[in-house]
């Protein structure tokens, strides 16, 4: 397990987390993608040191062979992430078509409850509402 790979994993996690904390859905999706790359790399690293191709034949010492299981797991994880990312992109498109923005908004019910606690006398547009509530 090399220090460089570990560094790459931590950078991917850091950048991904930062992007996920943004309000724009496209950034969140890119952030999720980066984090899942980091995770996949981490699983490969968990398989231990590199070795010969994992083909069992006569005269191959199993100790010198790379661990194939993490690679199989990563393949499954990549496929799942791929599918879910496609779904999220479709959702982002849908959200943009419905509302004209890809920002993730607050929960309207939460806003209603918050308004009861801090009453606002005049109706305010959502954008300003945001400031008032926070």
């Amino acid at each position, binding site marked *: 397990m090399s220090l460089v790979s570990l560094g790459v994993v931590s950078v991917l996690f850091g950048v991904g987390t930062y992007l*996920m904390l943004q309000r724009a*859905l496209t950034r*969140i999706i890119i952030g*999720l993608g980066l*984090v*899942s790359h980091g*995770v*996949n790399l*981490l*699983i490969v*690293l*968990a*398989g*231990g040191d590199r070795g010969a191709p994992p083909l069992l034949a006569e005269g191959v010492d199993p100790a010198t062979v790379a661990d194939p*299981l*993490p690679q199989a*797991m990563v393949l*499954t*994880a990549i496929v*799942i992430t791929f*599918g*879910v990312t496609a*779904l*999220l992109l479709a*959702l*982002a498109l*849908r*959200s943009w078509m*419905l*509302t004209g923005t890809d920002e*993730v*908004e607050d*929960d*309207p*019910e*939460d806003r209603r*409850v918050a308004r009861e606690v801090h009453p606002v006398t005049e109706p305010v547009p959502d954008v300003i509402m945001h400031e008032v509530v926070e």
Partner: protein
Amino acid sequence: MSWLLPSAIAVPLLAAGLTALVGRRLAVQRALALSGVTFTLGAAIALLIEADRHGPVVAQVGGWAAPIGITLVADRFSAIVLTVSAAMLLAVLAYAIGQLGRDALDWWFHAKYLVLTAGVAMSLLTGDLFNLFVGFEMMLIASYVLLTVRTGPAQVRATISYVVINLVASALFLVLIAFAYGATGTVNLADMAGRLAEIDPAVSEGLGLLMLVVFGIKAGLFPLFMWLPDSYPTAPTPVTAIFAGLLTKVGVFVIIRTQTLLFPSEGPSTLLLFVAGATMTVGVLGAIAQNDVKRILSFHIISQIGYMIMGLGFLSVAGLTAAILYITHHIVVKTGLFLVGGLVEAEQGTGALHRTGGLLHRRPIVAVLFLPLALSLAGIPPFSGFVAKLALVQEGVVLGRGFIVAVSLAVGLLTLFSMTKIWSAAFWGEPGELGESAGRAGAGVLIATGAVVVISLAVTVFAQPLIELSARAAADLLDPAVYISAVLGGG
């Protein structure tokens, strides 16, 4: 018998594929969906009987021996949960078919529902950490699509936060798998249980905490529950009902399975009891602040999860018996309550409590269906919630954990309060104004909801045999050797 394990997962998946092939022939789709879910229910019952008589049923998929291949296991605990879940999946499917147009509007409804069924079955039956991830993902991806199709801006907004939170949880789950594999060199749960005992206790403890966080997000534990009341209420009734009844409970199931199997410890766990108490309290307080039937019920899911974790926190046979009893009761009652909430919405055209009223006179049958479920949720005797809560409180008193007992009783009272709120606003008083979509709930949905109410009453009537079965399951949980030897020895 072991062939039932893979087929309980494969048959609904196969049926899902077939519903896609038959295209827009609704009658064929319905027949396929009903038979797929019925098969899983039948398999679950057969597995329960077999596991109760002769110990855990184990299948090694592909014939590879235990630590190498993928293992499927049905012990008493997983068979109980699978049986109740499959029964609810069937009842809700009947409701969806009865709710005119719900499945006719969306040609893929049955395919998604069957994949969800297979995902739930796989998550409950798997004996392998990575396969558990795959089972979870099957379940979740089906749920993402069920939440979004043919919906408006509100659902899209709610689904986005649901999907993103669950993806973060899935990423953490993979991190957990990487760490666990790195530390123990296996992903087979039975094998991992043995190896975790040999490694550095600090590493093993860290893995245990990470598991609690990952599955805590899925189960909606304090403080990781924020996503739940935000996303559930916006979905169509049958979808919300099945999510509310099953998805979080699968998370609880996995928490109980991993904490007892992988990290066995003696005596009550203060951490788990604290989380349990906080989950109950925050959930019920959230429910009181709400003003919509489905949102109130969503917050109650969180609060009720606390009771199950309380049973686990005692880490004793009686505590786990109560937890298993609670899961059984809760899956049924919660599914039923959401179905009734759907009936209220259907009759009134809205679920907002300031606009409903007078349903008792207009549609007494809905009130008749609501009452036993609501009282059961609050734990009023003689309904099923009482049996489960009594078992929890008794064990708490025996162990001298007075504080958590007091919290759980107070939360029960507040639950009753918010059920009263729904009752008085929706069923009593002046008839409310009817919303645009108000209509009459058909016979199909009423029968499906009635069936759930009958099952919930049956939990009370057959409480004694159920308690005995749960006690045997709990004893198995506290003795991981039963599970480990069933998986690793022979098969």
